[in-house]
C-alpha cells in the first residue's frame, strides 16, 4: 500500500533522510520509531505530500507523492502532530469544512460526518467549540476529520504525543478498530516505545538512516536473552574489565553498563563475584525496543 524507495532528503547541507526504503502492506499498522530529529517528521512530510523529496520516491496506493500529489491526497488521511483544527469552530463545523475540501457535500457529507462522529465517540461533543475540548478529544476529532473522505491509508505524526496514558490507550484502541473494522492501512511515527510495541511492523530511524526493520518481536529477538544493567562508579573501567574477563561487548550509557547476554542470571552471579565491591546495583530485564535501538545506534530514543 505504501512503497518507499531510496528516499533521501536534504535541508541545505543537512541530510535529514538517507536512502530509506520499506514497504507497508495493506491493513498493516506500521510504525516509524526514532528520537526527535531522527528523520521521522521529514518522512511524514514527504508521504503526506507537503514536501517533495530530494531523491528517491514514494508511492501510496500506487500514486507517486511527488508526481501526482492530488491522487495521493484522495487516498490518504493525515493526522498532524500539531493541531489542524479551527479552534473557533465546533467539532461538526470542522468536519463539514474538511468534507468540503474533499468535494463532499449534501447528504453524502452528512452521512460521513455522522459515521465519523459515531465511530470516534464524539456524539455528545459535536456542537462544542474545539477550544473547549481536552487534548485527547481533539486528537479524536483530528482522526475523525482525517477519515472523512474514507481514505485507504492513514498517516499519523506523533499522534499520541502530549496525551496522558489513558488517552493514549484510548487512541490505540481506536486505531486498532480502524484497522480491523475497515481495513485501513496505518503508518504512524512515534518516539514512544509502548506505542511502537503495538505496531505490526516497525522501522527504526536514527539520524536519517534506517537502522532496523521487523516486527517488535523480531527486533527484540535480535538481542536474544536478557539485558543486564550494572551501576558502578567508573563505568568505562568496568566495561573494559568485562570485555577482558568475559570477552563481551557492553554499552556505557547514562552512568550504566549494559550487557546483552543469553543467560543473564548466571552472568550476574559471575560478574558480581569477579569484581567484588565495584558494582553498586544490578538489573535484569527482557529486551525492549529501547534496547534494540541502543544496540543498533548507541543512542537512546526518549
Amino acid at each position: 500500500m505504501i512503497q518507499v524507495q531510496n528516499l533521501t532528503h536534504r535541508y541545505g547541507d543537512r541530510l535529514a533522510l538517507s536512502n530509506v526504503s520499506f514497504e507497508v502492506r495493506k491493513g498493516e499498522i506500521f510504525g516509524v520509531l526514532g528520537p526527535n530529529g531522527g528523520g521521522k517528521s521529514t518522512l511524514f512530510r514527504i508521504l503526506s505530500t507537503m514536501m517533495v523529496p530530494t531523491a528517491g520516491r514514494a508511492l501510496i496506493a500506487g500514486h507517486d507523492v511527488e508526481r501526482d500529489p492530488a491522487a495521493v491526497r484522495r487516498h490518504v488521511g493525515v493526522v498532524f502532530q500539531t493541531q489542524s483544527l479551527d479552534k473557533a469552530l465546533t467539532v461538526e463545523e470542522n468536519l463539514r469544512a474538511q468534507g468540503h475540501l474533499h468535494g463532499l457535500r449534501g447528504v453524502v457529507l452528512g452521512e460521513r460526518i455522522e459515521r465519523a462522529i459515531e465511530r470516534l465517540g464524539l456524539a455528545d461533543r459535536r456542537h462544542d467549540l474545539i477550544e473547549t475540548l481536552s487534548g485527547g478529544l481533539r486528537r479524536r476529532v483530528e482522526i475523525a476529520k482525517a477519515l472523512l473522505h474514507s481514505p485507504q491509508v492513514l498517516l499519523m505524526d506523533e499522534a499520541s504525543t502530549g496525551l496522558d496514558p489513558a488517552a493514549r490507550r484510548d487512541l490505540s484502541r481506536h486505531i486498532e478498530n480502524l484497522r480491523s473494522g475497515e481495513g485501513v492501512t496505518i503508518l504512524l511515527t512515534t518516539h514512544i516505545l509502548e506505542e511502537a510495541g503495538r505496531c505490526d511492523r516497525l522501522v527504526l530511524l536514527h539520524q536519517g538512516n534506517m537502522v532496523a526493520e521487523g516486527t517488535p518481536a523480531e527486533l527484540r529477538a535480535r538481542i536474544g536473552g536478557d539485558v543486564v544493567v550494572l551501576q558502578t562508579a567508573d563505568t568505562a573501567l568496568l566495561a573494559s574489565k568485562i570485555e577482558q574477563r568475559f570477552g563481551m561487548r557492553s554499552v556505557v550509557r547514562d552512568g550504566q553498563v549494559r550487557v546483552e547476554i543469553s543467560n543473564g542470571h548466571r552472568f550476574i552471579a559471575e560478574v558480581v563475584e569477579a569484581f567484588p565491591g565495584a558494582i553498586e546495583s544490578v538489573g535484569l530485564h527482557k529486551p525492549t525496543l529501547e534496547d534494540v535501538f541502543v544496540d543498533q545506534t548507541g543512542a537512546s530514543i526518549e
Partner: protein
Amino acid sequence: MYSWTRRGLPLSDFFLPAATLWQRELVRFWRQKSRVLGVVASPLVFWLLIGYGSNDLARFYSGALVLTVMFSAIFSTISIIEDRREGFLLSMLVSPAPRSSMVLGKILGAATLAWIQGLIFLAFAPLAGVSIRPLELVSVAAAIFLISFTLTGLGFVIAWRMESTSGFHAIMNLLLVPMWMVSGSLFPMSTAHGWVKALMWVNPLTYSIALLNHTLRLPNAAPGAVESLVVTAAFGLVLFLASGLMAAQKATHSAA
C-alpha cells in the same frame, strides 16, 4: 494531472473549498467580535486627534478609512503564518482542493472582513462633513471592497513565505505603514517634496486613497478617477495572481 471528470462537478471541486474557507473567516470573525473594536478603534482615534488638531477632519478621512482596511487585512493574513503551522490551513495543504481555490477563499474571506470594517468606519463620514446619497453608497462600497481585496492580496504575498509573525511585524513597520504615509493620507501630492512626490506616484496605495476621495467627493484627489480605479484594480489582480502562483509552488523545505 488533475482530472475534472473523475469526481462529480468540476465547479464544486473548485468553488466548494473556496466557499467553505470564506465562510470560515466570517464565522470566526462573528465569534470574536472584539476584533472589530481593535481594528476600527485605533484609526478612529488617530483620525479624530489629527483631524481635530489640524481642524480638518475631511482631509484625513480617506486615509484613516484605508488604514482601517489595511489593519484588518494584515490581521487576517498574518494568521496564515500560524494557521499553516498549526491550524486549519495545514489540512488544506494535504487536501485535493486546488491551491488556487484555497487562495481565492482565504483572500475573499479576509477581504470581506476588511470591507465590513471599512463600512463600519464609513458610518463616521458625517463627522468629516461627507454626506453620501443612497445611490453613491454602491460606488463607495465597491471602492472599499476593491481596496480591501488589494490590501489582503498584499498581506497574503507577504505572509505566505514568512516563517514567523515577528517578521511580518517588521515588514509592517518598514513597508506597509510608510507606504500608507506617502499615499496622500497625510499630505497631498501637490505640496510634497520632489523625491517624496516621486514615491507617491509609484505607490499603489496613492491610487486607493484617490479612488476613495473621488467616490466620497473629497478634495486633494491627485490622480484622476479612472486612473485610480484602473491602478487599484490592476494592483489587486497582480497580487491575487502572485498569491496563487506562490501557493501552488511545491515545497522542498518544511513549509509547516
